[in-house]
């Protein structure tokens, strides 16, 4: 997978574009990751619809934000590297970090080979200790209560590693979101946490404006003296630039920063709501592809070829996974304790 990302990031026909503030290699790398992430989610949805999995939830529509996020992460194990407390829409971030796609398929099919939970947990519930990816939890917002803990360890260690926590807009109504702000901003004990909220303006079926009186979620940071910004998460370029600034601030100042990213939700909440594509929301991938084409960095044909190649590869992986064993019932008693 990492190999492929590289491949996409060195296209044959790079025309230098002064209009775009990022270099072409990076732009094309981002596009490659976004595309792969989208194709992965579409494959997972297809698996669900074919009965190769009980439940789907994931991040199609958030790639423009999640890919730059992944690219900026300092990955590795332990407090000298970034700690990641993600929610269940983060596949694009994992792929951008270099994670192979097949693990997600295995988790979807709940095989014994599922590298994240051994067939125990839902799709999108990554966990990878090697890269400090904390287990994604189903309960909304609890990750915000834990993030200050890893950040404190990092602050203590020194260096530039930070903690990143992500979650949705609706979840900010839980007290844990406030706890994260409180614990990250203790005077003299400010913590290096990048607090991210991806605002798709939905909590399952409930529109944001029906339940939340907060105009911008980033405003909630102000009282705590926490820097904050609301950004366009559908634009990968501005996402990258804004995130870069936020990462740099947190890495060097060792203080929290809240980023609210406005994003789309392209396949509804989850398989429970049908997992069907909506055209009512902006599609960051299509927009980005159009931009790259306008700037001569990509052609429709090239994009189509890439998509076909990735789809083919995912199909092959899905076929592989289909025959892998399910976990043995006797394993339920494994790993209750370390």
């Amino acid at each position, binding site marked *: 997978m990492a190999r492929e990302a590289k491949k996409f990031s060195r296209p044959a026909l790079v025309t230098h574009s002064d209009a775009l503030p990022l270099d072409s290699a990076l732009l094309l790398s981002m596009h490659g990751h976004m595309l792969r992430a989208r194709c992965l989610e579409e494959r997972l949805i297809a698996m669900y619809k074919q009965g190769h999995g*009980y439940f789907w939830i994931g991040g199609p529509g958030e790639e423009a934000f999640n890919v730059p996020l992944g690219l900026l992460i300092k990955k590795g194990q332990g407090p000298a590297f970034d700690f990641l407390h993600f929610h269940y829409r983060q596949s694009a971030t994992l792929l951008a970090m270099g994670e192979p796609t097949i693990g997600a398929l295995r988790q979807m099919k709940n095989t014994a080979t599922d590298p994240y939970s*051994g067939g*125990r947990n839902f799709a999108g519930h990554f966990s990878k200790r090697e890269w400090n990816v904390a287990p994604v939890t189903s309960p909304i917002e609890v990750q915000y209560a834990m993030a200050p803990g890893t950040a404190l360890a990092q602050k203590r260690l020194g260096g530039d590693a930070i903690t990143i926590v992500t979650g949705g807009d609706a979840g900010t109504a839980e007290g844990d979101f406030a706890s994260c702000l409180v614990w990250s901003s203790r005077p003299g004990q400010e913590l290096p946490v990048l607090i991210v909220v991806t605002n798709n303006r939905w909590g*399952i079926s409930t529109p944001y404006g029906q339940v939340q009186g907060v105009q911008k979620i980033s405003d909630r940071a102000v009282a705590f003296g926490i820097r904050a910004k609301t950004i366009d998460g559908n634009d990968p370029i501005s996402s990258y630039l804004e995130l870069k600034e936020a990462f740099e601030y947190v890495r060097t100042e060792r203080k929290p920063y809240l980023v609210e990213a406005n994003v789309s939700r392209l396949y509804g909440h989850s398989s429970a709501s049908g997992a069907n594509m909506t055209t009512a929301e902006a599609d960051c991938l299509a927009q980005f592809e159009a931009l790259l084409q306008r700037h001569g960095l990509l052609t429709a044909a090239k994009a189509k070829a890439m998509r076909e190649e990735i789809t083919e590869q995912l199909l092959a992986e899905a076929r592989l996974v289909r025959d892998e064993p399910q*976990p043995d019932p006797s394993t*339920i008693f494994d790993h209750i304790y370390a």
Partner: protein
Amino acid sequence: MANMAQAIRMALHYAEENLGVTDIFGEDVGPPLGGVFTCTQGLKTTWNSPLDERGIIGMAMGLAMAGQRPVAEIQFCDYIYNTIDLLKLAGNTCWSSNGQWNLPLVVMTPVGSGIRGSLYHSHSFDATATHIPGWKIVMPSTPLDAYGLMLAACEEKNPVMFLKPKALLRIKGEELIPGEPGDDKQLSKAIDAPLGDRSAWKAQWPAVGKHVVRIGEAKTVRAGEHLTVVSYGRTLPLCAKAAATLAGEGISAEVIDLRTLWPYDWAAISASIKKTGKVLFVNEDTEVTNFGEHLLRRATEELFYELLAPPKLLAGKFLPGIGLADALEMASVPQQGDIETAMRALAAQAP
């Protein structure tokens, strides 16, 4: 015949119209969704809450204090565990104020396994709920009982926890709810929200009537002589089926649907145990510090000398979660085969 989700919906409609229910709310409880299991579609007092379980329980308590009659939903009981302090508070408000205040509120929440819900859509809540004094706790296993228990819950002066066995919500009943049209298609057309745009849709409620299942009354769903099986919720129909199977082997099992977990019908349980001398308690909550252990303790302390075999509990394995893969879920909580095996073993014990 209505399924349990429809029965709950009709009960809530009845309660809105006749029992003063003012607020049916929770995450995605209002339009357009009407609840993740459709239990609240088309009702007139529903609304969508912020994603905040503590706020939901707090809101219900406040509404109840101010004379409203709320029915609050926690979307899955798996997400109720950050509110236990508030549930305890709701349960002690009458007592701590020496009888001044009472909180007529209902909390309903789907429980249990059976839909491949993985770690966080498979939890049981009976053990935790029964350890919280001051609540009444009910858990139907049929649509008609769900209807009758919901009416009872909405008439209560005290907090009631209404546990919805999620595996049974879509199972049709065998008895008609008073006023329910006999034709299922007709019922569905009248009260199930349509796919697609629902903004103009209104439920056409049948003229459902009063049918109250009193809190505290168990139901003997099958009479028998050789052993007693006490259960509730998802495992109850499995026990009944197991008893039917075992009848063919000459084993006569009495099956009791507890229906109310607190205050429970000890008279029914003890009478049955006195008759059969053997008892199996079945539920799917994890088996340590399990409500079935309370029932078993009471049976042991009070009926020791009438027991012809050690009383037995069959419950969920003591695991941190229920795994997603089919085989994991099956191995984690009682299935029909496990129940039959346990019943056979108990029946076979020589006194």
